[in-house]
């Protein structure tokens, strides 16, 4: 005779393990007084150039570190290391995103007691990194003008999980049909609290407004 089918109530969040690890990581960062920023974007949006511009603006004010995630190369970490800032390269070996466990490995290699701000350059991808809490205190993303103003429609999750949106390559605006007002409205609909910064990491436009926000957020976390 066939056994009867029973129903078991599970009622669990699928990514609870990662979330728990990420919460532990944030608690440790609070203790070591280190602010962790997770930077996400598609490939080619200008993450590395943007990080270099951020480093140049904040180097004299905060002690910085960078964790670079890349599928399999060390090019970006080498560029950052040339600025004199500590850079750790995490090879994700084909993984499309970073999770809290991988970030925790990266942080082990840094002396957190001597760092105020660590920036994670996540894998270039607007889909997967949005799903996984890395343990960062704030999440930000870059959308570059050449990518188009329709990206919030295609990758709504990414736009909804970020605390700040950097609209990069703003110097391209005159040569494109990118509709800044429409893009803003789409993003604010998904995420009414998001801060939007229009910058050009290449020529420095808007970098000051962005870095003063980041400095303020960092200080609020490390010296409450």
């Amino acid at each position: 005779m066939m056994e009867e089918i029973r129903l078991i109530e599970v009622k669990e969040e699928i990514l609870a393990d990662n979330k728990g690890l990420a919460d532990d990581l944030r608690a440790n960062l609070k203790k070591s007084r280190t602010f962790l920023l997770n930077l996400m974007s598609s490939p080619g949006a200008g993450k590395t150039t943007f990080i270099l511009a951020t480093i140049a603006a904040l180097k004299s004010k905060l002690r910085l570190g960078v964790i670079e995630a890349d599928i399999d190369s060390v090019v970006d970490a080498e560029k950052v290391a040339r600025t004199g800032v500590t850079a750790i390269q995490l090879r994700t070996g084909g993984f499309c995103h970073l999770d809290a466990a991988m970030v925790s490995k990266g942080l082990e290699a840094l002396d957190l007691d001597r760092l105020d701000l660590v920036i994670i350059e996540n894998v270039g991808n607007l889909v997967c990194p949005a799903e996984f809490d890395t343990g960062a205190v704030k999440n930000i993303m870059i959308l570059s003008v050449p990518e188009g103003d329709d990206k919030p429609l295609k990758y709504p999750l990414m736009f909804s999980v970020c605390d700040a949106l950097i609209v990069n390559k703003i110097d391209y605006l005159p040569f494109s049909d990118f509709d800044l007002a429409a893009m803003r409205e789409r993003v604010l609909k998904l995420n009414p609290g998001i801060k939007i910064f229009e910058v050009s990491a290449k020529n420095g436009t808007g970098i000051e407004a962005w870095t003063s926000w980041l400095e303020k957020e960092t200080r609020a976390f490390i010296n409450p």
Partner: protein
Amino acid sequence: MHELPVTESILNIVLKHAAANQVRTVVSISLRVGEMSDLEDEWIQRYFDYLSKGTVAEGAKLKIERVPVTIQCSSCQNAYTVKIREEKDPKCPQCGATGGKLIAGREYYIKDMEVR
């Protein structure tokens, strides 16, 4: 693209509950996944079939219920669902306002499972 780690998490949770309830076979697993997620049902099932080989969950069918993206209008508080990837600039059907707050569509949840 990230179906593999997500599927691993699903399997781990299912096996934990199976062990705690002396389950011999998991028949099906009901999930609630928000429309905001890019997970493909077909791939979750394929990865699940692969990862669950040799466990009590081998052969279990994943039943995925999609939760629509729901926005609460900022001017009249009406809650309405939107096809987030199709509607370019959704408006509140009641008052026509465009602002609002996301109140559903990001779920990632295991509801229950049928077992023998």
